[in-house]
């Protein structure tokens, strides 16, 4: 084939997005939590999280709350939290809820992540710039903008409500910025390295990694919270309603 023909074909393919798409890893599909202990390779499991260092004025109430929860657990009680009310987890917690998988739908201009627990959806736009934090309406998922950086997908998220708890219930301000690096560390193992920056609440950025394995035949299960029998009593403790026959 003449080189001019090759160039023309390449240009045509490029304008259709084929070449771009072919050069990028395929993240499409359903991903479950990767556990090294269950026949997995320890080298592919998530590295230990970095230290979470809150500024003293935030560390004190955070630790007091954790102590109250531990004390309640010793009494055999659970204190109320937002998930007991069937509220969605939001970012970044939705990326890893118990053993529920997430589904990734990848297109040239947008990557959509659907979490099975609570059917949470986040959209990562690849074709536009991020806005200033103060211009994004605070919500559960914020505004996510991504770009391919070699073989990894870099995602920037801002605009998370302060009522949406962070990693292990950590507090955050409206200045929180979440940076993610999605990378295939093996053909069927995906890492999402998450770095949380918050100049108001954190002394320094906090990084942790989630590891996923591809679940090729898994069909996502719907999750609509229409039978929530948990309620919070006057002492703030979680109870279950029993049916009176």
């Amino acid at each position, binding site marked *: 084939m003449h080189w001019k023909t090759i160039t023309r074909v390449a240009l045509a393919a490029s304008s259709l997005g084929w070449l771009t798409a072919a050069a990028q890893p395929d993240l499409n599909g359903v991903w479950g939590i990767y556990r090294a202990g269950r026949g997995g390779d320890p080298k592919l499991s998530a590295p230990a999280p970095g230290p979470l260092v809150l500024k003293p004025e935030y560390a004190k109430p955070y630790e007091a709350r954790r102590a109250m929860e531990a004390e*309640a*657990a010793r009494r*055999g*009680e*659970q204190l109320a939290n937002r*998930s*007991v009310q*069937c509220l969605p987890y939001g970012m970044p917690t939705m990326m890893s*809820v*118990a*053993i*529920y998988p997430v589904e990734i739908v990848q297109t040239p201009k947008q990557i959509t992540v659907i979490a*099975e*627990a609570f059917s949470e959806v986040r959209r990562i736009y690849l074709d536009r710039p991020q806005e200033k934090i103060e211009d994004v309406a605070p919500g559960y998922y914020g505004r996510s903008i991504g770009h391919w950086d070699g073989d990894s997908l870099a995602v920037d998220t801002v605009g998370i409500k302060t009522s949406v708890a962070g990693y292990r219930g950590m507090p955050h301000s409206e200045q929180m910025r979440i940076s993610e690096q999605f990378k295939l560390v093996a053909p069927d193992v995906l890492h999402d390295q998450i770095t949380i920056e918050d100049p108001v609440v954190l002394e320094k950025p906090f990084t942790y990694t989630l590891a996923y394995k591809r679940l090729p035949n898994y069909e996502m*299960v719907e*999750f*609509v*919270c*229409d*039978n*929530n*029998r*948990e309620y919070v009593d006057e002492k703030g403790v*979680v*109870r*279950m*309603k*029993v*049916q*009176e*026959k």
Partner: protein
Amino acid sequence: MSKAAFRNACAGLLLAVLSAWGHHSFSMFDMSKQVTLNGTVTDFQWTNPHSYIEIDVPDEKGAVKHWSIELGSPSILQQSGWRFSSLKKGDKVTLVINPLKNGQSGGFLGKATLPNGKVLGNGPGREP
């Protein structure tokens, strides 16, 4: 196994089980106590955030007591053999449960023996 090692193993198991569920802890149930219920299913609710078996349990004098038994979510249950059609109204079943601490007639499923003899647990990490 030493006592400390046993305690650590138990704590690890509890953590694994809790992390498999996520929605709430089991603190409202007395996990150290087991009750066996032989009765008739009045409803099987394949729902989120939890599934429930509603069951009428007759005592030796013939008086019927109603129980509400909590299970995992459909997603979690189907990973351990359950289906939405595993139980239906009128089925005779045997359930082993951890009762509510507050004395109400509710509990958390340990294992269920279905009418066809199949024994199912309560999701990964809570096999029968």
